[in-house]
C-alpha cells in the first residue's frame, strides 16, 4: 500500500522539476511546457488527497484546472506566435523590453 507521503513527494519533485525548467530554459515553448508540468504535479497532489480523504472535490478541482490549462495553452501559444512574428525568436532572454 503506497501512502500519501509518497504521492506528495512525487508530486513535489515533479513540481520543482517544472520550476527548474521555467527558471533555466531560454526557449519560450519549453518554458511553457514546464508550466504544464507544474500544473500537472499539482493535479497529482489534488487527486491523491481526494482519494485518500474520500472527497470528490479534489477531482472536481482537477477538472477545472484542466479547463483553465486548456484555455491558458490556447492563449499562451497565441502569444508565442505573435511574439515570434514580431521578433523572429522565441528566446525569452531577448524578450525583455518590459522594463524601465
Amino acid at each position: 500500500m503506497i501512502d500519501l507521503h509518497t504521492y506528495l513527494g512525487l508530486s513535489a519533485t515533479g513540481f520543482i522539476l517544472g520550476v527548474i525548467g521555467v527558471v533555466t530554459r531560454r526557449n519560450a515553448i519549453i518554458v511553457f511546457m514546464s508550466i504544464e508540468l507544474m500544473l500537472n504535479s499539482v493535479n497529482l497532489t489534488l487527486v491523491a488527497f481526494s482519494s485518500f480523504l474520500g472527497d470528490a472535490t479534489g477531482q472536481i478541482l482537477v477538472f477545472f484546472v484542466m479547463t483553465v490549462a486548456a484555455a491558458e495553452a490556447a492563449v499562451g501559444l497565441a502569444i508565442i506566435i505573435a511574439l515570434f512574428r514580431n521578433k523572429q525568436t522565441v528566446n525569452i532572454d531577448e524578450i525583455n523590453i518590459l522594463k524601465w
Partner: protein
Amino acid sequence: MLTTLVPLIVLFPLAGFLFLGLLGTRIKNETVLGLIGSGTVGLSFLSAAWIFLSMLAWDAVDRSFSVELFPWIASFTGTPSSFSSSFAYRIDQLSILMTLVVTGVGFLIHVYSIGYMQGDRGFWRFFSYMNLFIVAMLNLVLADNFLLMFLGWEGVGLCSYLLIGFWYTRKFDVGGYKPGTAFTNDAAKKAFVVNRIGDVGFLLAMFLMFDRFGSLNFDSVFGAASVLSPGNVTVFWIALLLFVGATGKSAQIPLYVWLPDAMAGPTPVSALIHAATMVTAGIYMVARCSVLYALAPDVLTIVAIIGAATAVFAGTMGLVQNDIKKILAYSTVSQLGYMFLAMGVAAFGAGIFHLMTHAFFKALLFLGSGAVIHAMHEEQDIQKMGGLKGAMPVTFWTFLIGALAISGIPPLSGFFSKDEILWKAFSSDYGSPILWFVGAGGAALTALYMFRLVTLTFEGESRYDTRALHPHEAPKTMTVPLIILAVFSVIGGFVGIPESLLGSNALEHWLEPVFRPANAKLALHPHDPELIEYVLMAVSVSLAAAGITAGRTLYLKRKDLVEQLQALFVRTYKVLWNKYYVDEVYDAVFVRPTVRLSESLLWRGFDVGVIDGLVNGSAAVTAKLGQWLRRIQTGVAQVYATVFLGGILLVLTWLLFR
C-alpha cells in the same frame, strides 16, 4: 412685523446685486438695469424709513433691539474656549440713522448714476457692484457684533476696490509734479493695500477682545469692558487698534494716501463710497465703541489730535490741487478729520451729526463735479474750465449751496454741525483751545479751497476751447438728485440746532441713549450757553466768510496776486503741490524696501533657494534613487520567477523554523 422688516433692508439690495450680477449681462436695456439697481436701494430706504418712523413713536428704551437671522459660527460649544457669533442685526438710534443716510443718499446716487453711466459698457456691472456695496455697508452699520461688522467692513473695502478700478483700461493722473499716469487698477490696489494695514489693527483688536472678554458681541464686550477701570491697558490697546482700523477706512493720517487716488473711479462711486458712506465707517465704528473709548481717555486724545491734524493737513493740500475731484477728496479727508476731532473730544453726537450733513453736501458736491466732468467731456482740470455758470445753472446753484454748506455759512447744514464740533473741541472736558484754533483754521481753509474751486470752475472767463466744446446741463436723472441733495444740505442741519441758538438739538437727544454709557463713564460737565460760545461762533463764521471772499477775489479779479503769492512762497507751493511728498516718502520707506526685500530675500532667497530647493531636491533624490532602483527591473521574466522562488523559500523557512 418690524423684525421681519429689518432683514429686508439688506435683502433688497442683495437681491438687486444677485440679479444684476448674474443676469445683468443679458439685459440690454439700461432703463431696466438702472431701475432695478436704484429701485432695490429705494425699497431698502423705505423699509428703513418705516422702522424709523415707528421708532419715533416708541419709548427710548424700546428703540434698541437686535434681530438674530441665524446662528453664524458656533465652535467648541460647552468648552471654556467656546466661540459663537450669530448673524444678528441691531437696530438702535445710531444704526437706523446710519441706515437712513446710507440708503437715502445711496438711492439718490444710484438714480444719478443712471444718467452718468449712460452708454457705459459695464453699466450692469456698475450697478451690481453698487448694490453689493450697499449690502456690505448696511451689514457694517447694522451688525450686532464685531465679526459681522468686520464682514461689512471688508465687503465695502472689496466694493471700493472693484469700483475704483471700474474703468480698468483707463489711466489717471497721480498728481504732483509727476505727470506720468498710472492705471486705475494701481489706485484700486493702493486703496486695498492701505486699507488692509488698517484692517490688521481691527483684526488685532478683535483678537484681543475675544482673548480678554471671550465674545465679540457688542453688548458682551461693552459690558465686560465697563467693569474695568478707566485707563485699563487692555481697553487702551483695543481702542487704539480699532482706531488704527478707522484711520485706514476713514483716510486719516497716516493712512489717508489712498483716498485722493481713489478718485480714479467713476464720480458716483467717489460720491457714494469715498465721500458719503464708506469712509465714514471709521467714525461710525468709534461712535459704536464709544464705551471703550470712554474707558481709554488717552486714545481719545490721540483721536482728537489725529483728527485735527488731518483736518488742516488735508486742507492745505486741497488748496493747490487742480483736479476737481482731487480737491473734493482732500476736502473729504479734512472733513473726516473734523469728525474724528469730535469723537476725540467725546462729542460723539456732534461727530455723527457732521457725518450726516457731510454725507448730504459732499455727495452733492461730488455729483455736481460729476455733472461738470460729464459736460466737459471727461476734463477734470479746473484750470481748463471757467464760466460754466451760464451753461449749467442747476449744477452751479446746487454746487454753490454745497460749497456754502461745507464752508459753514449759516443757516446751512454744515454750519450747525461744524460749529457744534468746534464748540465741543473748545469746551469739552477733553477739548482744548488749541484744538479749537486748529479746527477754526481748517474751516477757513475749507472755505478758501472750496471757493477757489467754485470760482475757477463756474465763474470768470471760459478757459476751454469754446468752439470745440459746448457744455450743456446734465439730464434730469442727474439734476433731480442734485436738487434733492441741495435741499437736504440746506435743511439737514435743522435737526441739530443747538440750545444756544434756541434750537432743541434734537439729533443729539435722539442719539443720547446710545452714548449714555460712554458719557456716564466720562463724567462730562454739561455747559450752559455762554457768551464765549457766541463769540467763537462769530469768529468761525467770519473766518469762513473771509475764506470765501479771499477765494472769490483771488481767483476772479486778482489773478496777478495768485501768481505773486505763488512766486513768493514758491517752495511752500511746491511742497503742497507735491502733497508734502508723503507718497514719495512712503514709497521710499515702506514700498521699495518691501519690494527689494521680497525680491532678494523672499523670492530669490527663500522661495527659489529654500522652497524650490526642497521641492527640486526631493525630486532629484527620488530621481537618483529611481535611476538606481530601476536596475532591478531587468525585463527578463525568469529573473522575476527566481526572486519569486527566493520569496517562497523564505516563507517556507519561516513557517518551518519559527
